[in-house]
């Protein structure tokens, strides 16, 4: 266990959704390299409280990289410098004494800033509400093994389903597009046999909901590079293709494949 010393933090502070924000500088004199990035912020907050100042607001919950609540643009990268790692899983080992660390909230029209570093990602829920589900009311399901799912299909569905809804893709995208998130949910459900009945309806509704709130994809690939779950750009292609079919397919004949 080593200590990092003299970290220079520049943290975005903003009192509310409509107020103007600014960078505030703080120095963290000492922190263990075993600490996580958020624990470093915890310690800073403890200090701020002891100085009678308001703690920095940031979103977090599981601190295990699964709930998707944490965010933060750290030194210009969504979730910080480590690949496939959420902010909460980022450890101070990745930094050196004396480093300057700039922390900004995620910025997108669809992610309005609530306060300081916390943003509202409810726009993602709107996309799911539009069609990110399989209609299967409780009670009517057939025996689970009646629906055979080839292993490669189950694996592919799982790869897409691993998305934690953190919004790093939007934050990292130069266009503020949510195609990776939306594509991930569409691909998860659209490759599975259970998802076929609503396949095109789903793609259509979700893409429209996405369109209403986010930017458009120009295939930079920045989303996938920032994604803590390494969701592949393939999901975007699948979404595009299913969306086109949603507009052109004769859905009365869907069972013919």
């Amino acid at each position, binding site marked *: 266990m080593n200590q990092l010393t003299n970290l220079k933090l520049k943290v975005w502070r903003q009192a509310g959704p409509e107020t103007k924000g600014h960078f505030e500088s703080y120095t963290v004199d000492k922190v263990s390299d075993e600490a996580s990035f958020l624990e470093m912020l915890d310690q800073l907050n403890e200090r701020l409280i002891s100085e009678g100042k*308001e703690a920095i607001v940031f979103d977090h919950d599981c601190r295990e990289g699964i709930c998707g609540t944490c965010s933060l643009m750290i030194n210009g990268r969504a979730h910080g410098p480590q690949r496939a790692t959420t902010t909460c899983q980022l450890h101070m080992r990745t930094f050196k004494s004396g480093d300057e660390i700039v922390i900004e909230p995620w910025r997108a029209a669809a992610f309005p800033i609530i306060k300081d570093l916390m943003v509202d990602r409810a726009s993602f829920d709107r996309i799911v509400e539009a069609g990110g589900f399989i209609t299967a009311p409780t009670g009517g399901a057939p025996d689970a093994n009646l629906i055979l799912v080839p292993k490669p299909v189950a694996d592919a569905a799982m790869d897409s389903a691993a998305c934690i809804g953190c919004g790093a893709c939007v934050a990292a995208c130069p266009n503020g597009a949510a195609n990776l998130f939306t594509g991930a949910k569409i691909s998860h459900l659209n490759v599975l046999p259970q998802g076929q009945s609503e396949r095109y309806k789903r793609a259509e509704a979700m893409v429209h909901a996405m369109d209403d709130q986010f930017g458009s994809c120009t295939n930079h690939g920045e989303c996938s590079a920032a994604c803590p779950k390494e969701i592949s750009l393939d999901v975007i292609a699948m979404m595009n293709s299913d969306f086109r079919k949603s507009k052109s397919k004769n859905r009365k004949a869907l069972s013919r494949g």
Partner: protein
Amino acid sequence: MSTVLNAKVPDGELRDKWDNYKADAKLVNPNNKRKFKVIVVGTGLAGASAAATLAELGYQVDAFTFHDSARRAHSIAAQGGINAAKNYQGDGDSINRLFVDTIKGGDFRSRESNVHRLAQVSVDIIDQMVAQGVPFAREYGGMLDNRSFGGAQVSRTFYARGQTGQQLLLGAYQQLSRQVGLGGVRLFNRTELVDIVVIDGRCSGIVVRDLLTGEITSHAAHAVVMATGGYGNVFFLSTNAMNCNVTAAWRAHRRGAMFANPCYTQIHPTCIPQSDESQSKLTLMSESLRNDGRVWVPKNADDSRSAEQIPESERDYYLERLYPSYGNLAPRDISSRAAKRLVDKGHGVGPLKNGVNLDFSAAIARLGRDVVEERYGNLFQMYERIAGEDPYKTPMRIYPATHYTMGGLWVDYELGTTVPGLYAAGEANFSDHGANRLGASALMQGLADGYFVLPYTISNGLAPLLNKPVPTTDHPAFVQAETEARERFNGYLNIKGTRSPDWFHRELGKIIWDYCGMERTQQGLEKALSELPALYSEFKKDLRVTGTGESINQTLEKAGRVDDFFQLGMLMCRDALDREESCGAHFRSEYQTDDGEALRNDEEFCHVSAYKWTGDPMAAELNKEQLVYETAHLATRSYK
């Protein structure tokens, strides 16, 4: 003075009880359902599944969560899997076996009828979740795959890589989202329950605080469901998400709902050991790792060689040695205590000597790295990120940590609390796990409660209320509860002391962990009960909350939660002191067998301890629900 606890267990043979109940339950006609409003607090597995199902049935549902989205609930973090008595592997599983395993795993401290129902509906859960598109692991032929979990000799655990909870929650969240989209559910996000309102002995609604604006409002309903999760964070360091708290259950308790078995808290054997003082939480490594990992410590105490340097002959595979038939898959409480004893004796590994090894070298040699990676890849990755070591090369270091709370709001067979109209589901109720929960059974219980139990029992409870008006939020009881809540939150802001809520939480956690953790003694608990009130009164005098109550203020939120944890902590210690036996996860050092196993006292303690609020948590009124075993036979647990 003590209330008679009526568990409302239906008549008939154990295996017929649930069918009998459903046959007799009163129904609400489809057209009348929309005349009823049901509030569901919590949108984890239990809450989201209940809210979605009730809305599908046609009830008006208002769902509340302090999270920004239902998808963030703590259920998302469950890794290992979910049990169901499908017997897809043909290895001798059955509803009855799952029932017996769960009763036995809970060390004969759970209610037979509830557990049996849980085992029965477990099979429906898998069907339901598969239909919703949960990508469970599959065999090459396309059928569902299973793995085995601690405390069972069959393979009945369904899993989706190491992210089973995530996939199940997303399934339930998606179903809930569908209802939100269709207008069947009104979702109040970032809204925290701060009180419930009881009028004429019936729960009539809730008081909530909007976390974004600090505004306090009331909501009336015909029935309220608490699906607000567990209270493991009373320990400060636990595997629970940072925001898990007891507030909802505790506020219900203060309004008359009895709190059962608070001292039953589970310690999970496979977590990453604490690495330094400032640590904010502990991370679980799924128990499924014990399928292929072997647990060992150096035979010699204070051996400071690295794992690779210690020859086979100087390693103590203590679980395999002590419990040959279950080996590394011995139940959680047993494995945890075995680890603690060895670490206490100086056999611990790692820089702080606070862990034991979980070694995969044999599995990698036997199965190949690819198979191991396929099974546990994401867990290994997670471990490497946190501990900074590569578990493919060096063994993982693990140590027990608080993980799950079996205690909770007392509920009857219908999941109704002692306040009519108030239900509790998921980890928030005292549930079906007795004194110890088996791995992969919490997800099962949460979904069973939400999908397959509450929808029936709630309609049974609502049917008689048809066309009877319920109080509205201008009723004085609502107004008063709102005022109290406002005063409470302003109160925290006005103390203007010197210490943050986190500081108090950490101190509270230390006391609870030291005296009410893995091993408890009379002396220790008495000490805790003398230290806690002192610390609590300091909290009330010396707390400092900066900022205001009018925009989001996480320090203020925390203050309210820590306040409730203090009161709960006192009740926990009181309960642990009271229960003069060892059972499941509750281990009182005074009561153990010669070889250090839990020694139950069925004569005196074969009951549920349900506490009624009296104004002082340490003087709560104890009520007992006697547990009767008609089908399972009281026996000493043995995993040897």
